[in-house]
């Protein structure tokens, strides 16, 4: 079930994360957008697949196999782990999006994001806390 938009205005301590379900429902181009963040090796593998919702996902701790979205799983568990995933000087939304991918989409507030992407917290809040939602980044 999609989470309804909050009526509360976000502030510097509001936690944000990527709401993949919301993004999929709102943006038909979400998959192409996500593929652009894959490393070159995986970008090639995924380019030929149009639906990624029921692949074999392997738990990195136990080796157990479950079914799920291989694109998001690969992005978070593989590509986002590479040292050059977050590049300096990238657009602010890109940097924030990559930050969430690399931390397993753990919620962060603007103060915490500010320390990671090295931009003022107020600037981050005005970007992701406004009416327009970028890449599914929403208050938790």
């Amino acid at each position, binding site marked *: 079930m999609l989470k309804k938009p909050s009526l509360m205005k976000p502030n510097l301590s509001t936690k944000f994360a990527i709401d993949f379900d919301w993004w999929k429902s709102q943006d038909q181009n979400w998959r192409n957008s996500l593929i652009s963040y894959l490393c070159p090796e*995986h970008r090639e593998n995924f380019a030929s*697949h149009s639906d990624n919702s029921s692949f*074999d*996902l*392997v738990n990195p701790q*136990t080796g*157990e196999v479950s079914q799920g979205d291989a694109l998001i799983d690969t992005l978070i568990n593989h590509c986002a782990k590479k040292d050059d995933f977050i590049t300096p000087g990238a657009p602010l939304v890109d940097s924030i999006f990559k930050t969430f991918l690399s931390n397993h989409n753990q919620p962060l507030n603007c103060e915490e994001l500010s320390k990671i992407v090295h931009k003022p917290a107020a600037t981050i809040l005005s970007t992701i806390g406004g009416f327009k939602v970028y890449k599914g980044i929403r208050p938790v």
Partner: protein
Amino acid sequence: MTVSPMKKNSPYWEKLEIGSDDLQYLTNHLFETEEPLPINSLSLVLVNHRLQLLAKEEASRKAEAGLTYKPKESYPVGTRLSFPELDMLTGVIQSIREGDNPGLGNFQVATVELEDGTSKEFAINMPGHPLNEVDYSAASGEAQSAESIVKTYGRQLSNQLRAALDAQHDLVRIGDTWFPRSLLIDIGPGELNIAEAVLDSLSGGPIGIEELMEQLELTKSGENPKLLAFSLNYALQEDTRFDEVGTTGKFSWFLKRLEPAEVLKTPLYLQSDGHSLISDDLDDSTYQLLDSLDDELSFSDEDINDAEASDSIFLTLTYPHWRAGSMPVTPLTNQVFPTALESDTIKVEFIDEQSKQPISAWIVRDKKYVIGLREWYEEKNLMPGSIIGIKRTKEPGVMTISPEKKRSNKEWVKTVLVGADGGLVFALLRQPISAGFNERMAIAIPDVDGLDSVWQNRQTKSPSLKTDVMRMMTELSKLNNQHHVHFVDLYASINVVRRTAPMDLMNILLSSEEFFHVGDNYFHITEKA
């Protein structure tokens, strides 16, 4: 007992239960070695024994459990696998299919029927999985040595083992050392009578066990000296004529009947009707106030024994301890006093830091005081309220002692005057001072004999604590214009006429309508009273 390899780690030793098989093994070990062993050595023997059992059980479990699952391996259908990451669940591969994930390359998926009846899928033929790097032999604790286990869990193991050994009868204990009763060397009544005579000639003792063995000519018997010492210690321990007065690990014997009277019987000034420990219900500031008075009546044995050792402490004398020539055994003082496992009385020595003269004293643990300092208090012109510094030395039973430094001069101090009728009057008078003092607790006693008579008379007709508190409040309130009395002044003063615990005094003040708290630990007598 179910033992899996993972249990070699901390939960296993934390939850260890010592059973009859363990005790039998330890008894057999002591029979074989014929040498008494202290509890820490016995703990090591126990841990080694358990590690051997674990190794055996683990080997048989591994044989039953099959292969340890590694994602990089390829296994045929029907293979039995164990899964360390799933609490050692085991299962059998039922089918294998190709894995499907463009991000993971080529791999296979094995469907495993687990021992709990459920089925799960696991990746196999997958060289890049992080689980391939896990070394289960290290995680299972095989690398742990008995010594490292004892180092980590020694205290807990020793406590458990001590309790288990105390509950059986085949092994006997001296201090913290154990040995089979049936292997003890027989020490007869004759030897014990000679031991009594030896101690008699030493005015009671103390005498170390090695010296006593020589005096009794036991060392010439050719027996194992450790076993001989253990047997003699045990015989002395079982005979009520003797008292072990050494510090931990050092056996020293004294003739009980020649111990000072104030060791055998609590001095009058330290005897108390009430023993109210400080209540946990008090607010923080009141609790701290009562705690800071460092009165032995305020603390349980557990509070006192839990004290962490430190190099030095400062202590404020109260009248009862000043008069008895004693010090309290409290969480504060216990930081510098030696420990003893068995005996309630320990013979110790204080060294005057200035003159280097030794002062013989006794710690009477069960009654929570140290006795034997009266002459030193007089020699140093100390008074109730004086502050004393005590420092540990390298010898466990030896401490240095000194009054807190202060230039000798005269100060205005509460002074107790004893009337002809035995009534007490408090007045502020200039008194000579020889040591640093606590201003609220300082009380000059010009007439010690007169006050002794007051204590003697109160043996037969003792007023209630509330009556004494009212009298003392009335006296002390005259010493300032506001007529307020601070709790610490009152505590120090009431103890000039009767031994009173801080909590008992606080209870009277808080529960009686005659007194009210005006703030900052000051009390006032109400108009009604």
